[in-house]
C-alpha cells in the first residue's frame, strides 16, 4: 500500500467530513466518510499495515475534532480514536475471508461494525479518562449512554455513506498500490472433470 496516497486521502476525507459532512446530517445524527476509507483499506491491505494505518487515520480524526472544556477553552486529545480505530481495524481484518471485498454491500456491513466498535471504544476511553482525571467528557452535558446511542445511529449513517464511497474507492484501487496475491488450488472444476 502506498502510504502517501493513504495519508492524503485520509486528511482530505477529514477535511470533507468537517465541511461537507453537514449535508449528510439527519435529525442531529451525521454520517462520516472517514470510516468507509479506513474499512476499504483494512479489507485490502496486509493486517499489520492495516492496523497501523487505522491508527494514523484515528490520529487525524482526533486532530480534526477538538473538545470544549468546562472553562470554555479548547483541547485536542490525540489518542482515544487512535485506539478505537486500531480495535475497529482488528475487528474488520478477520472479515476479509468472509466478505466479497469488491461488493460495496460488504464494505457497508464492515463499516457499520467498524463504526459501532469505534464509537463504543471511544466512549469507554473517555469515561476512563473522565474518572481518572475527574474531568468532563466531550458529550457534556449529555450522558455516556446517550452518546453510545448516538454513535449507534451514526454507525448506520457511516454504513449508508460507505456504499458510494467504497464504490468510488474501488475505482481508485490501482492508485493505492495494494499487492494482489492469488492462491490457485487444484480442484475438480479446474481439472475439467
Amino acid at each position, binding site marked *: 500500500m502506498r502510504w502517501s496516497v493513504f495519508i492524503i486521502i485520509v486528511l482530505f476525507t477529514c477535511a470533507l467530513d468537517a*465541511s461537507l459532512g453537514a*449535508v449528510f446530517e439527519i435529525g442531529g445524527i451525521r454520517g*462520516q466518510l472517514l470510516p468507509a476509507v479506513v474499512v476499504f483499506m483494512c479489507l485490502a491491505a496486509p493486517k499489520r499495515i492495516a492496523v*497501523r494505518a487505522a491508527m494514523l487515520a484515528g490520529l487525524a480524526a482526533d486532530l*480534526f475534532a477538538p473538545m470544549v472544556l468546562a472553562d470554555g*477553552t479548547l*483541547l*485536542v486529545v490525540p*489518542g482515544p480514536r487512535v485506539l478505537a480505530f486500531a480495535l475497529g481495524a482488528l475487528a474488520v481484518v478477520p472479515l476479509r475471508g468472509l466478505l466479497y471485498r469488491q461488493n460495496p454491500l460488504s464494505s457497508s456491513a464492515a463499516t457499520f461494525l467498524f463504526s459501532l466498535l469505534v464509537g463504543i471504544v471511544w466512549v469507554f476511553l473517555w469515561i476512563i479518562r473522565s474518572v481518572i482525571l475527574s474531568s468532563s467528557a466531550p458529550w457534556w452535558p449529555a450522558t455516556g449512554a446517550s452518546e453510545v446511542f448516538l454513535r449507534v445511529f451514526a454507525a448506520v449513517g457511516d454504513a449508508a455513506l460507505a456504499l458510494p464511497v467504497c464504490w468510488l474507492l474501488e475505482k481508485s484501487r490501482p492508485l493505492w498500490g495494494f499487492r494482489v496475491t492469488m492462491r490457485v488450488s487444484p480442484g475438480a472444476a479446474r481439472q475439467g472433470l
Partner: protein
Amino acid sequence: MSATRFVQFLSGKRLDWSLACVAIVISMLPVSALKPWTNDVARLVLVPFVPVTHLGMFLRERIRPPQAIFDPRSPETIALDNEVARLRLLYEQTRLSSAQLEQTIQALRAVSTRIGSANTTFVEAAVVALDPSRVGGVVQVNAGSRHGVIPGAPVFIEGDLFAGLISDEVGSFGAAVIPALRLPSIGCRLYPAEGSDPRVPVQNYAGAVLKPTGRGTWTADVASTGELSVGLVARVADDRLPRSALGTRIGRVVSVEPIEQVPLARRIEVAPIAGLSDVASVIIAIDRSQQ
C-alpha cells in the same frame, strides 16, 4: 549500532503495541500536559486543508442551503424587518445597560467610562469547518489575530443573534468559535416576541440562567410571578459576557412546565433561533478596550 538494534527490536507486533501504549498514555494525560502542544499540532494539520474545507462549505451551501429563519417576503419588508430588529436590539441593549448602571454608582462610573471609550469593531468571517464528530460542536472561522480577533469576543449571526464566543486559541488567520450551547451557563431576560413595554421596568421581565440540556436546547428554573409562555424571546443579560452581547437574542421559549417541589417556580426550555452550523458567515464583535 544500538540504535539499529533498537529499530530491529521495535518492529512487527512490538511496534503495534508500542504505538497503542503511547496512544493510551497520551489519552490519559491531564489537560495541562496536552494543551501546550496538541492544539498547535491540530492547527498545523488543519491549515493546509482549509481550501478543501472552504470548497466543502461552498458545496454544502449549494447542496443543502441553510433553513430560512424567517418567511420569505419582499425585499422592502425584509429591509424594514432588519431595521426594526436593529433598533429593537439597540433599545433593549440600552434599557438593560441602564438598569445595570442604576445598581451601583461605582459600576455606573466604570461602565460610563467604558462606554465613553467604546471602540467596538466588527469583523465578518466565513465558517470554514465544523466539528466532524458531533452536531453543535466547535466551528472554525477564517478570521484570526491578523484581523484583530481576540479570545472571548462574541460572535453573532443574522445581525443580533448571539451564537457563541471566540475560544482562547486564536491563530493568525483562523479561530475557533465555542457555540452558545456549549457555554456552561448564560444569563438572560425573557421578553415578549413583539418587544418590551417601555413603561414596564426591566426587572419585571423574568430573568433566567440558561443551562444546556445536551439535546440542543437550554433549560432554566424561573422563579417569577410574571407571565411565562411559549414564544417568549430570551435576550442575553449576563455581566460575564462582553457588553456588545448584551440584549442580543439567543433563543425562544419552547416549553413551560411547573415544578412540583417549588410551586412558585416554573421550568422553561429554550431552543436556539439559529445555530452556527446553519450559516456560512458570522460577525465577530471586537472591543478594542479589551485588547
